[in-house]
């Protein structure tokens, strides 16, 4: 199956019972698969009137007790970020897949892009932390979708699957395990009259009482206190926003995933993610054939950015090369995380096609010419 379909199957395996979306290329195969599959497993698929409504419905369904998901591409993602912010503020577990295409605006609807990486990070207004994962194959699309649902429940937060048109439309063999553990929702342990719906446990995540469970809680996108009641107060706001960030940052080691290929002796570290990482690997192999000690760092968890991983690996190399289908979004993060200690080169393309391994090789050779 292709990557889009693998995400749909991953969602079904993870226990997703609600999917709301609006048609957009290149996400169609994902939504179409969900429309076929969800009625078979007792879930609900609904095609909403737009992506604003789709994301709002997902947040509503999550409060109705469902594991809920939506999928889109750039233009739709722009409409969803408003209610992704609502999900962050109300601590609503949900999963959003973005099958990226060439952008800005309508851009290249049928062709690949990776230009929404920073939008994923900061797209909704305000300061917040978000979890974003990026698969490089249909199999990994399946696996990461399952993990995305688990993380969304663990941290009570939206989790983004930042894939792209090529992974979405790429057909490969996908093995679906017989049993996939369904992540539990953290439930209140006390009676309704004692329950404070936004009082966190030690892990900074409060238990979640969904609608109709007898807790009768108030949930608001306004700044709120432990009761869930609005508080228009700078200190309460600072406390809430810091906790929402901290609950993810403090435990980031649980889900900071990456893959290293030939990095042990690497002098040049090629950094990439998603479909670009597959091409980057080709570039690294070409370099090795020429006797250049190159290695690949493939980022799987994109947000929060794996600063530590970058910092450690950059200490042993003479240069880094970032390969991505935008003009340097993750490049800047790498620059920040490595503190500019080693020379850097970006192998960029604005979108519409993937790179060639030769372009990656050229980047590797170029960075080696820089004086460190």
């Amino acid at each position: 199956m292709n990557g889009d379909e693998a995400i749909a199957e991953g969602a079904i395996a993870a226990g997703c019972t609600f999917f709301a979306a609006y048609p957009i290329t290149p996400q169609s195969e994902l939504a179409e698969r969900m429309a076929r599959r969800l009625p078979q497993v007792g879930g609900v698929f609904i095609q909403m009137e737009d992506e604003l409504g789709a994301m709002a419905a997902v947040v509503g369904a999550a409060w109705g007790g469902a594991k809920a998901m939506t999928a889109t591409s750039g233009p739709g993602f722009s409409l969803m970020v408003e209610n992704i912010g609502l999900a962050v503020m109300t601590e609503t577990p949900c999963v959003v897949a973005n099958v990226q295409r060439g952008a800005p605006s309508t851009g290249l609807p049928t062709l690949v892009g990776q230009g929404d990486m920073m939008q994923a990070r900061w797209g909704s207004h305000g300061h917040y932390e978000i979890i974003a994962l990026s698969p490089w194959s249909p199999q990994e699309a399946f696996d990461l979708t399952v993990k995305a649902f688990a993380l969304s429940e663990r941290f009570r937060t939206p989790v983004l699957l930042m894939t792209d048109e090529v992974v979405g439309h790429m057909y490969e063999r996908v093995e679906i395990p017989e049993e996939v553990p369904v992540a539990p929702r953290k439930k209140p342990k006390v009676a309704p009259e004692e329950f404070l719906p936004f009082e966190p446990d030690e892990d900074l995540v409060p238990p979640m009482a969904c609608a109709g469970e007898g807790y009768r809680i108030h949930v608001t996108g306004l700044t709120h206190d432990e009761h869930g009641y609005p508080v228009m107060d700078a200190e309460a706001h600072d406390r809430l926003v810091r906790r929402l960030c901290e609950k993810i940052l403090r435990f980031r080691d649980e889900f900071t995933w990456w893959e290293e290929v030939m990095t042990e002796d690497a002098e040049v570290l090629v950094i990439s993610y998603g479909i670009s990482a597959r091409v980057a690997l080709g570039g690294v192999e070409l370099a090795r054939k020429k006797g250049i000690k190159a290695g690949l760092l493939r980022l799987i968890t994109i947000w929060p950015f794996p600063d530590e991983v970058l910092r450690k690996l950059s200490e042993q190399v003479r240069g880094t090369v970032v390969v991505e289908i935008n003009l340097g979004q993750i490049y800047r993060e790498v620059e920040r995380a490595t503190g500019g200690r080693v020379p850097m080169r970006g192998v960029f393309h604005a979108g519409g096609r993937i790179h060639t391994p030769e372009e990656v090789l050229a980047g590797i050779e170029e960075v080696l010419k820089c004086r460190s």
Partner: protein
Amino acid sequence: MPVVKAKPKPKPEVVPGVRHPSEKYLRTDRLPHIWCSGCGLGIALSSFLYALEELEIDPDSVAVVSGIGCAGRFAGYVRLDSYHTTHGRAIPFATGLKLAKPDLKVVVFSGDGDLFAIGGNHFIHAARRNIDITVLCVNNFNYGMTGGQVGPTTPVGGRTTTTPYGNFEHPFNLVYLAASAGATYVARWTTLHARRLKESIKEALQHPGFNFIEIISPCPTNFGRRNRLGDALDEMRYYAEKAVIRHGADPAEAEVIVGKEFIVGKFVDIRKPTYLELYHKKVEELFGP
């Protein structure tokens, strides 16, 4: 310069031993509410609470979803599962909530700007799909929370902060819009008709399908003041003079025009299969019961 101190908020008078009659459904710890004196939202809220009480609805079986604005604060005052969402998105949020938890009675309570300007698209599509929810719209003809700007229901000639020379846009006739989009229960009342409003809410809560009630309300602080409508009581007098109860009237004729009589009552009360009924029927056809 003398320091001008803000007036301290008056503390609510607490009479020992006296309980609020609606405390079963009301977050009394959130009172006093933020609404202006003379605003119709309090009447709308109490009509809703009385309706719940008279129907003996289990508070655990009903959820309220609001958008943003004065009416958006409604969700914060009910002792129910209540959701204060984003601007315009109460209906799609409620759609997700209802589809994920079909046993729940889901009530959307919001304002004219929230439901019909920024949220207009969601309204017509939820009505078209016949999502089984009840939408209560308090129509005060302007954006009260942000200071009184023109809205999609502001009558022609209405003065607001963004129509300082008078509004020249054509307003929506909400009951006509709801009926055209497929709502299966459509009514309009003013806050003067509190008992009829309560009865209407009771009907809507028991009526399967997409139910819509427009509640025309005074906004003495903004719309009323700028249009010299007097205080809230004067607005109520206006409703008493101009509102004509006519059940079963053609919604197309129910326009609200300043200075003219306008129709209130029940416009639509029909039964057709809801979204979930059709969905479950389809699933049953395919996979058996």
